[in-house]
């Protein structure tokens, strides 16, 4: 009997539930899809390296899943409580008829159980289908063959999804039971008799609060962008808290101000249904300030996460051709002394580091020409006499104040100008000439370049191997020597050839291109030929490796970004949609009244559209403004990883938001319209 009541209640309130239900289904599906990625790749033909990356990605994604589960849990609890509150009269009636609270709890339990069961079932089904498409996406990202299509079902992901969602529903049931036990019959029956009190806020207080919070927000914006260096010391948290608090007060004060301002413009206020729309807006925003703040902040996080993730992926792919211009780079750590044992080096390795890489190969009878088409050998020197601190010279103290974490006593890397020129011409970069008493700095990590430029501009002289040198250029020159996936060359000092002391070689390197066109095969044979050693003092990098790593990292970042972004988006859009739908249900009478005094249908649906539109747009606009600065901060933060194609990433993010958020808006509008017309 109780179960029948539950079923009938669900059927009856299906309109209220639709949006919530769809959100749950999408949530379950997304949860499954992202947790099933690993299983999807089992059948693919990918390298061991890529598989390791995917495994790492999977473990990170399951970590993120906990966060996602918490967010979805909050959404579910919020939504059920909200939907139940709307049915207070119904429960009041049950109690009036003598139903015990325990039985009411049972009805709610039945409903939650039903919703849970259906949403899990449909969501998993949808998820399994969607994850087949996901395989195609994953395959494309990792450039794997998808010649044969196999239908994959991930048992682990399925169990994980069911476990997480069952836990959430259990919590909801506990919450509901507690809520029902607190019910007072009189409150339930008188629930909607309360007339709405409209409290106008004092416009002066609103103005002052608005100005103060705008100033606070401005300061937060400044400190995350313009005053970036301040952040390094104070931490970003102050700005985040400041931003969140001022967001709340901006909504609070604007709700009062907008009404006041528009009301004073009689021509607009008394046109059509404007006065009605604005009053509706004002009467609700008082109660919606808190949720709008949360939605605005969630949207802000979504925009930043999504666009940064996409831009990282773009730039990683773009960086490869620039930062890994040749096929392979071998390096050997040279001239190690006993102190390196502490760093995990063995005695043999230290002994081995005395001999050069090139000679070693010669001794082994290895003819490099056989494998490598064009290659260069070069040395990198280092001496404790020239540290980063020495380089910065008189600017050191002032820089140390801001960047206290930098290691100022590490030895600088030094190269001769002719060695560098050979590398540069192999890389297709500009070559340089230096006079006897000149030096220059090559770097591509922007923050470090800025620091170094300060002392270069002053013409700071340095002492290296007994020679005194002055800077040739006032700024660092763009360039790098070690191949890597990002702009992370902190600086290499280029000096005239005769300055260096051969006893201070720190690294010896052979860098070049394979002879064969089939790079993968060439790499395998070359690795075999050089008997690649696991010794710590050998470092080898190849273009293929960097490519795989950065594609993997890019994919990981994109997946995590998408995962979080989509969940955040659907959560806040669902909250808004539910709120607006219930508002519309409450407003049926008001719209009906408008109709009775002869308002056009067009005008009425226009008013509804504007009313819902404002509520969706308001948090979005502020979130966009936040994001404008937030993305700048992210760009700085992720500088080493590159920020190419930021514009494209932002546009892609906008597309996703328009699609999901706009979709929710449209559904809300259409459902509301249906609701107010059905009376």
């Amino acid at each position, binding site marked *: 009997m109780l179960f029948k009541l539950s079923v009938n209640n669900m059927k009856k309130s299906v309109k209220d539930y639709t949006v919530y239900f769809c959100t749950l289904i999408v949530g379950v599906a997304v949860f499954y899809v992202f947790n099933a990625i690993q299983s999807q790749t089992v059948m693919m033909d990918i390298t061991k390296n890529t598989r390791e990356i995917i495994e790492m990605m999977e473990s990170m994604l399951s970590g993120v899943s906990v966060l996602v589960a918490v967010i979805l849990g909050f959404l579910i609890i919020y939504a059920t409580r909200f939907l139940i509150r709307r049915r207070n009269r119904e429960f009041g009636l049950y109690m009036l008829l003598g139903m015990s609270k325990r039985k009411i709890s049972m009805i709610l339990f039945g409903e939650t159980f039903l919703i849970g069961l259906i949403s899990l079932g449909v969501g998993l089904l949808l998820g399994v289908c969607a994850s087949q498409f996901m395989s195609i996406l994953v395959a494309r990202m990792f450039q794997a063959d998808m010649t044969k299509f196999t239908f994959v079902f991930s048992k682990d992901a399925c169990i994980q999804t069911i476990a997480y969602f069952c836990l959430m529903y259990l919590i909801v049931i506990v919450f509901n039971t507690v809520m029902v036990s607190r019910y007072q019959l009189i409150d339930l029956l008188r629930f909607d008799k309360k*007339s*709405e*009190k*409209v409290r106008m806020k004092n416009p002066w207080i609103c103005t002052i609060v608005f100005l103060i919070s705008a100033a606070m927000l401005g300061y937060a914006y400044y400190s995350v962008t313009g005053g970036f260096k301040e952040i390094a010391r104070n931490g970003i948290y102050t700005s985040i808290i400041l931003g969140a608090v001022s967001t709340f007060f901006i909504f609070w004060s604007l709700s009062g101000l907008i009404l006041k301002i528009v009301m004073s413009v*009689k*021509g*607009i*206020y*008394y*046109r*059509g*249904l*404007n*006065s*009605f729309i604005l*009053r*509706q807006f*004002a*009467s609700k925003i008082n109660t919606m300030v808190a949720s709008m703040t949360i939605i605005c902040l969630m949207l802000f996080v979504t925009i930043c996460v999504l666009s940064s993730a996409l831009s990282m992926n773009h730039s990683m792919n773009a960086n490869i051709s620039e930062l890994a211009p040749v096929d392979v780079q071998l390096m050997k750590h040279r001239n190690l002394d006993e102190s390196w044992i502490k760093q995990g080096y063995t005695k043999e390795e230290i002994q081995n580091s005395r001999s050069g890489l090139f000679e070693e190969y010669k001794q082994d009878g290895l003819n490099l020409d056989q494998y490598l088409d064009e290659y260069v050998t070069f040395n990198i020197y280092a001496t404790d006499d020239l540290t980063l601190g020495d380089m910065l010279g008189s600017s050191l103290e002032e820089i140390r104040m801001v960047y206290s974490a930098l290691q100022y006593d590490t030895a600088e890397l030094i190269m001769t100008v002719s060695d560098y020129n050979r590398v540069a011409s192999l890389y297709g970069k500009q070559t340089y000439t230096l006079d006897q008493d000149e030096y220059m700095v090559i770097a591509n990590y922007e923050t470090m370049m800025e620091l170094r430029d300060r002392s270069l501009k002053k013409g700071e002289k340095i002492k290296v191997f007994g020679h005194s040198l002055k800077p040739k250029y006032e700024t660092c020159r763009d360039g790098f020597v070690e191949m890597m996936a990002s702009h992370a060359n902190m600086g290499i000092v280029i000096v005239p050839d005769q300055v260096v002391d051969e006893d201070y070689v720190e690294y010896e390197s052979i860098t070049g291109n394979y002879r064969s066109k089939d790079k993968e095969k060439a790499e395998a044979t070359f690795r075999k030929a050089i008997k690649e050693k696991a010794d710590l003092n050998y470092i080898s990098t190849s273009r293929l490796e960097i490519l795989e790593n950065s594609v993997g990292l890019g994919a990981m970042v994109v997946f995590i970004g998408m995962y979080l972004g989509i969940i955040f988006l659907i959560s806040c859009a669902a909250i808004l949609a539910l709120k607006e739908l219930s508002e519309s249900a409450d407003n049926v009478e*008001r719209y009906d*009244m*408008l*109709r*009775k*005094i*002869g*308002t*056009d*249908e*067009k*005008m009425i649906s226009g008013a509804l559209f504007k009313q819902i539109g404002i509520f969706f747009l308001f948090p979005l606009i502020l979130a966009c403004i936040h994001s404008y600065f937030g993305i700048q901060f992210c760009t700085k933060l992720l500088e080493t990883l590159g920020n190419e194609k930021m514009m494209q990433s932002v546009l892609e993010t906008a597309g996703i938001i328009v699609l999901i958020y706009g979709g929710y808006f449209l559904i809300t509008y259409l459902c509301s319209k249906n609701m107010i017309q059905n009376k």
Partner: protein
Amino acid sequence: MKTVLQLDQIEKYYGNRSNLTKALDSISFEVEEQEFVAIMGASGSGKTTLLNCISTIDKVTAGHIVVDGTDITKLKGNQLNRFRREELGFIFQDFNLLDTLTAYENIALALSIQNVPAKQIRDRVLEAAEQLGIQDVLDKYPYQMSGGQKQRVASARAIITNPKLVLADEPTGALDSKSARMLLESFESLNAAGTTILMVTHDSFTASYASRVIFIKDGKLFHEIRRGADNRKQFFDKIIDVVTLLGGDVSDAL
């Protein structure tokens, strides 16, 4: 006198062939300009259905309703809305004021949905408020007003568009006797100033303020009396006589 409203053999059926209810059964009457007509009848006699048909909220099954030369049974969709907001004024039993708007804004809304320029709105709202004596509640919200004040605000909203006909559905139904009297006196003065009013009520006292009372029983026209030269008390007694004839239900409501 010009005829504002003309009902011609209107019928309204509910239900189907096997179970037919005639809510209105060939009712015909006319309302002249500047008349104050009350329609009386017991619960279920069809008076509200009649008002709904005149106000175009409901549709008649047969017959014609002509308001100021327009046959409103032939109007459709937005024509109906347009007719309603331009030619008719409404006063409801439960006021139907928007609780989010002040009294002033509630009255102004009737004009702004007709796209009247904002400049004219102020003067017209103040004028209507003066006619009904509600100048001092204009800035209040409905929840801050008494029932009588709310109903007079609703009346101001109904007359501000200068409608051909004001329709009132049990306007005193939710009011105490003092507020009811004040409202009805306002109606009298509005009527004297030239407003045509058609009011539905089951209360003989309320009906006694009208210049003519039409009685309906079981969907049919039962009787009609005019006030003529009588004062209100005499007219009230006449109404009571008819009500007694009509049957018990109505007098119960007295």
